[in-house]
């Protein structure tokens, strides 16, 4: 659920444990006119950031020392659209209940990011 006020940009939660990639994606997402919440590579920090409300989430699955699953669960509970950022084989580490959520293959180009966010936010109420 979006808590966005009219005229404000969508807030996109970005969870990615890799600094280089996270920075690159943050810049791309901001260039597309969204506001980035994060980025962060930690589940605990992502959950804290989430409490401020976001319109969509992009979640890296394997955060090295943990899986992103708790963040995905919280977004499900909040009925917030989100998709997974996957690389190679890490998608199969996710519990099966997430298999029908969108998966975006990393690394995403600018256009791919734009398309991904369009898809996620098209169902948004406002």
């Amino acid at each position, binding site marked *: 659920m979006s808590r966005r006020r009219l005229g404000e940009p969508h807030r996109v939660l970005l969870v990615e444990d*890799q600094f280089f990639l996270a920075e690159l994606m943050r810049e791309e997402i901001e260039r597309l006119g969204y506001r980035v919440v994060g980025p962060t590579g930690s589940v605990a920090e992502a959950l804290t950031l989430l409490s401020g409300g976001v319109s969509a989430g992009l979640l890296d699955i*394997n955060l090295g020392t943990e899986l992103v699953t708790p963040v995905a669960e919280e977004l499900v509970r909040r009925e917030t659209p989100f998709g997974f950022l996957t690389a190679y084989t*890490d998608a199969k580490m996710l519990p099966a209940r997430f298999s029908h959520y969108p998966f975006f293959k990393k690394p995403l180009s600018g256009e791919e990011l734009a398309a991904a966010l369009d898809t996620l936010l098209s169902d948004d109420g406002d």
Partner: protein
Amino acid sequence: MNEELETVNAELNAKIEEVGRANANMENLLASTQIATVFLDAGLRIKGYTRAATNLFKLIPSDRGRPLMDVAHSVEVDDLEGPMREVLRTLEPHEETVHDGSGKAYSMRILPYRTEENVIDGVVITFVDISELKRAESEARRFVSVAQATEDVIVIVDTEGTIEFWNQAATETYGYTPEEAIGRDMARIVPEEERASFRQLLAEAPGGEGAAEFEARRTTREGRVLDVSTTLTIIEENGSTKLAFTERDVTDRKASDRHRELLLRELDHRVKNTLSTVEAIAERTIVNSGHSMDDFSETFRGRIRALGRIHKELSEQKWEGVEVASLVDQTLAPYDTGGQSSVEGDEFTVPVHATLPLAMALHELSTNAAKYGALSAPEGRVNVRWRIVSREPGEALVIEWKEEGGPRVSPPETTGYGMTFLQRGIEYEVDGTTDLRFEPDGVRCVMEIPLDPSGEL
């Protein structure tokens, strides 16, 4: 009187006929039986014998009336006469297993011979060929000793699951002795969640044939749950069905499989990260190197090479982490061609998740020093020291980078990508801290990396 005689005569004839018939029956029986039998009188003289007896004793019809001990025979026994006399004396049957010259085994029985009037009038000696039985017995014994000695668990149950055979390996693996296992339900070693499928297996066994292989779990006497690989063989014998489970504990193999999976996962993550790092570095290096393609090429190659060296080191350490000294050396040495650096610190292995961020930070410090700092002038020095410090709730690795003797330093006007990473990468990726200062005497950088007390992946 005459009449009376005739009656007696007729009765006698009837009796003779009856005896004749009985005799004929007996003759037929003696001729046809496979059991070697010799009838002897109280003096152990031959009264009669069956045809089968001629295989053991060289008997001919004229031997009737001769002492048996005078007849040549192939029964390998120390004393044949003694037991016969003993039976005559005690009237107790005698039984023993004997062999003939060809190695066939016989069960030899000596019984008192009773006349119609229940008078003991000699002995009957019989030989039953038990070679087949003996062979089967010794074969069974052989199989049982093999089954006992094998390292594989062998458990044989009936279709109710009642254990009939339980070998030594079963005792060692599952903890129950044969006495505790045999006669009990095998379900005892099947974990709750697999009981239903176990019962189904038992129920479906009759009529089934051949062998099936599958993985299962077993609970030991101590309550430990083991992963086993099982081969089930269905045995049909005399109309009843038995199930033979040949099992091997693969718990350790499973654990090493899991470890390998974990390693693969880690490796996958690292490879993915490396590729995206390369992509991100390329992207950022292009943006920041501005106009000069040479600049890009040099910076980019330096970063990729640093990554490559660390990966090589990680893979040599089987992805278990890299020694700090080695990590510093790998990143600093290529830029310290004049031996201007000194490193100092205890032996310590950097956890694998912190290796790359730390290496990238050290690489950026090294290239910066080579371009603008202490390594750009012959009299410059770089000192790298590290130590483990106590930080609630665990410990942290503190690395201090200190340059001196180089050109006077002023803070950079624009922040390049390397500096961005240096300032924020450690914090972002390993939740550590970086204190970077451009002091006039030289760059100083203190990095602190928290160490997970639980031991990192």
